[in-house]
């Protein structure tokens, strides 16, 4: 079959990212030709500033070398500017006459720097700052000349000025507005920035308007002349010497080619949500585009566009680009600055401000309707990524408000020695304690492999891919390494996995509303991209089905992790561990004897008391499991599952001289009531008989504490990766109420949390107020929740006895031989 022809005009970051995404989805669909006006393969334009300041070289910032194009069979025309599109014959023509035919055309022509229409703009030594050639020109000028003037005090202008200063020039920044980076900073932050740049030897003239550039003897610029300040007499304008003038006053989408081809443009090539121009065969991405009235000049949105565009080019036809929220980070070494969203605020918003002038820290957060809508951070930006995430998610910050300004102080408290500021870490310090990844390795991978997302970093380095407690640190490292290119993925809109665009919530809704009863039905109805999903979505779907349609949906063992399929916990050597249930942590001589006999008979190497008041038999061979279970004659403890684990109890009023409630029996009752319950993640409970809380109810998913007048119920605690103290939910009087309230809480969690969310993650997302509303205010709703849980658990059989006595799933435990 003849391959379709895809031609791309523009060889920059947005376009090539689109190709990369396309090649991932449909590697053989197109015969691809790329035209680039520059002589270089795709490089990381964002990192031109470190090249200018000498911290990196051009080679360091190449993202796709020539081998990459070759390996993917892409015909690459470098140094060839496309000047004409013939839409009728579907061909493009370059300046030198090279032509190419297309079935689909992708325009990624980027943007052009704005050149001020002042006399003298064509003089030698007057340049813009956009590409490698400009950067080289600046480096060259810095070696020969003394005076540089940068016109424009925005992001790009300041990075240029800093670079030239580092290279030894006397640099003056001229800015039309009263403070620097007015599009990203408020006045206070702008002034602080100016002060610290002045300390580095930069000079500033602002507000100041350029009148003309004055030429010298050899046609090279000699000086910059300014218009007189308003109110002063004409002719009083000042002049400063300049051997190099860098114009960095903004960029303009490059639409020349598109316009000449008759495509609709309006300060950018106008595209729809699928990145198509008005000619449906022609797509456009990147800075040249205007989408829903906005043109973007930062990398993160361009990548989002690329993803959507690739999806449509690959004929998948799903995914829409709905616009982006952007954030800015200045890449001047040693200056920390972050800005996002509506940082100015207004009458309808509130501001939280922290200003510590002597230590150079300024933070302003703008809040509207209990949501973070914007912010400026200066001097201390470690929490930038977190704020940006809150902002993008549009999550209510009402609960966080009192400590919002102090940032996400707890990034997790194990595995990285209490470090929570990536910037303060040396390259040799360990970031990920699970996989032994240090900061230097992560930074190196980000730079060398051109990584831009957390997922990429996880795939390549494994950092934060196990327990996830160092995710915050890894995000910080990513944000500080790639600067403005970093875009944290929105939590609320995160797809379930790479097999679908849909979120957990959307999938669950469809399962409920369409009464889908099996994984193949879900995948067909929701147009799954892959034929049978992956190891991420299948277990989630299986749980969602079983939870939504108890006794009706088909439980698919092949979509469960091995532990839940084998009903035992796989160990590193491939053997299994067996933990029988001991309700409330209470056992008896008979059980203990049986456990001892089993350990002898099957030569079980390790017998250990668990943290959950049970006994663990470790090192059991898989084929022995059914017989071990038969001999134990005890129910499964579900210690291997996303399920109810243990209910830890203290001795309570039956024996303890302090006990005020019978916690042991309350625990046994709870454990029997919720036994064999599957959940989004493991569920641990505890019951203490008095406020001394010996059962540690404060760090359980559901913790109950007996007091003289009844029981207090605490929820969403966690003793693991990140210690979280459980929050008070309710105080009740009777044992029946304890069961009902705990059951109702667990059932909302089962119905609404995402698969692999512990209770704390879910409650943090929806807020405890929501949970209280559902359980404390809505009495009927609470009872209905509890009923639904009991219905789901009705008639569930003990999986061990099913397998031991009735031979269920025998093939799972028997090996074949030859």
């Amino acid at each position, binding site marked *: 079959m003849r391959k379709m022809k895809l031609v791309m005009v523009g060889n920059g970051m947005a376009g090539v990212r689109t190709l990369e995404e396309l090649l991932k989805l449909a590697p053989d669909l197109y015969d691809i030709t790329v035209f680039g006006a520059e002589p270089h393969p795709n490089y990381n334009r964002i990192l031109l500033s470190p090249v200018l300041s000498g911290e990196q070289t051009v080679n360091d910032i190449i993202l796709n070398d020539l081998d990459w194009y070759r390996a993917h069979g892409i015909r690459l025309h470098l140094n060839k500017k496309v000047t004409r599109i013939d839409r009728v014959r579907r061909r493009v023509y370059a300046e030198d006459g090279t032509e190419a035919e297309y079935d689909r055309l992708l325009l990624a022509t980027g943007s052009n720097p704005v050149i001020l229409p002042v006399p003298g703009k064509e003089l030698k030594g007057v340049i813009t700052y956009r590409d490698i050639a400009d950067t080289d020109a600046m480096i060259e000028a810095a070696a020969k000349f003394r005076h540089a003037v940068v016109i424009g005090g925005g992001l790009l202008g300041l990075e240029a000025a800093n670079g030239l200063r580092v290279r030894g020039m006397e640099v003056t920044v001229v800015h039309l507005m009263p403070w620097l980076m007015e599009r990203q900073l408020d006045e206070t932050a702008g002034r602080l920035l100016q002060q610290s740049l002045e300390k580095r030897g930069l000079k500033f003239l602002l507000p100041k308007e350029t009148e003309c550039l004055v030429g010298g003897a050899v046609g090279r610029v000699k000086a910059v002349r300014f218009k007189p300040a308003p109110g002063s007499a004409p002719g009083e304008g000042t002049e400063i010497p300049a051997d190099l003038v860098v114009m960095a006053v903004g960029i303009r989408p490059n639409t020349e080619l598109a316009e000449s081809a008759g495509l609709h443009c309006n300060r950018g090539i106008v595209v729809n949500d699928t990145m198509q121009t008005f000619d449906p065969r022609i797509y456009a991405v990147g800075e040249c585009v205007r989408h829903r009235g906005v043109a973007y000049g930062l990398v993160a949105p361009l990548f989002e566009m690329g993803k959507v565009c690739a999806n449509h080019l690959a004929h998948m036809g799903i995914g829409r680009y709905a616009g982006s929220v952007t954030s800015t980070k200045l890449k001047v070494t040693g200056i920390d600055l972050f800005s996002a969203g509506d940082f100015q605020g207004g009458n309808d918003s509130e501001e939280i401000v922290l200003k510590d002038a002597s230590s150079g820290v300024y933070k302003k957060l703008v809040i509207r309707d209990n949501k973070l809508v914007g912010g400026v951070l200066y001097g201390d930006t470690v929490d930038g990524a977190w704020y940006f995430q809150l902002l993008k998610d549009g999550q209510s910050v009402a609960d966080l408000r009192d400590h919002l300004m102090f940032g996400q102080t707890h990034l997790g408290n194990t595995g990285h020695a209490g470090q929570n500021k990536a910037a303060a870490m040396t390259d040799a310090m360990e970031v990920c304690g699970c996989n032994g990844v240090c900061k230097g390795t992560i930074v190196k991978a980000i730079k060398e492999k051109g990584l831009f997302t957390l997922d990429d970093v996880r795939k390549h380095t494994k950092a934060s891919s196990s327990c996830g407690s160092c995710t915050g640190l890894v995000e910080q490292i990513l944000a500080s390494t790639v600067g403005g290119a970093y875009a944290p993925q929105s939590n609320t809109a995160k797809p379930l996995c790479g097999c679908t665009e849909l979120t957990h919530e959307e999938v669950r809704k469809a399962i409920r509303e369409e009464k889908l009863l099996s994984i193949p039905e879900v995948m067909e109805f929701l147009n799954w991209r892959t*034929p049978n*999903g*992956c*190891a991420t979505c299948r277990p989630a779907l299986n749980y969602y089905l079983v939870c939504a349609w108890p006794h009706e949906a088909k439980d698919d063992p*092949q979509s469960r992790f091995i532990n839940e399929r084998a009903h035992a916990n796989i160990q590193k050597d491939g053997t299994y561990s067996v933990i029988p249930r001991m309700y409330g942590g209470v056992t008896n001589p008979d059980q203990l004897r049986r456990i001892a006999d089993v350990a002898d008979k099957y030569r079980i190497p390790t017998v250990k008391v668990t943290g959950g008041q049970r006994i663990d038999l470790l090192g059991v061979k898989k084929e022995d499991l059914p017989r071990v279970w038969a001999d134990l004659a005890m129910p499964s403890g579900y210690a291997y599952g996303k399920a109810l684990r243990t209910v830890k109890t203290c001795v309570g009023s039956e024996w303890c001289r302090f006990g005020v409630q019978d916690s042991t029996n309350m625990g046994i009752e709870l454990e029997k009531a919720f036994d064999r319950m599957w959940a989004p993640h493991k569920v641990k409970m505890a019951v203490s008989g008095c406020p001394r809380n010996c059962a540690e109810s404060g760090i359980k998913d559901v913790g109950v504490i007996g007091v003289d007048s009844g029981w207090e119920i605490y929820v969403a605690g966690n003793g693991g990766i990140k210690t979280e103290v459980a929050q008070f939910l309710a105080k009740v009087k009777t044992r029946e109420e304890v069961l009902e309230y705990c059951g109702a809480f667990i059932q909302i969690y089962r119905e609404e949390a995402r698969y692999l969310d512990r209770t704390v993650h879910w409650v943090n997302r929806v807020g405890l107020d929501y949970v209280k509303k559902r359980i404390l205010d809505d009495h009927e709703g609470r009872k209905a929740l509890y009923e639904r849980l009991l219905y789901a658990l009705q008639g569930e059989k003990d999986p061990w006895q099913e397998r031991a006595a009735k031979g269920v799933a025998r093939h799972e435990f028997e090996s074949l031989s030859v």
Partner: protein
Amino acid sequence: MTRVETEMWVRVAALEEIPRLGARVVKSPLGDIAVFRNNQDEVFALRDKCPHKGGPLSQGIVFERKVTCPLHGWTTHLDSGQAVAPDEGCTATFPVKVEGGEVYLQLERP
């Protein structure tokens, strides 16, 4: 010396004995071999050791022509035994075929 041309196929199980999107372990003189069956009833045989830390691939989740190891989540191609990029490594593959609903494995080449 004359070369024996017959291939040495040994029967391991009926196809039905291997669950779809699942695997069975075959104990062999060469060690444990995982025999997989995907949704299209294709079968694959790999040494039952993940290229990462030797985890039992037979216990993993199978999809398309891949399996995800139960220990640390590495994914391996069933047809080549190669780890899915960017991970690097590979595990041995064995010739395997289905004939008349029976699965045959070749343990040594003639």
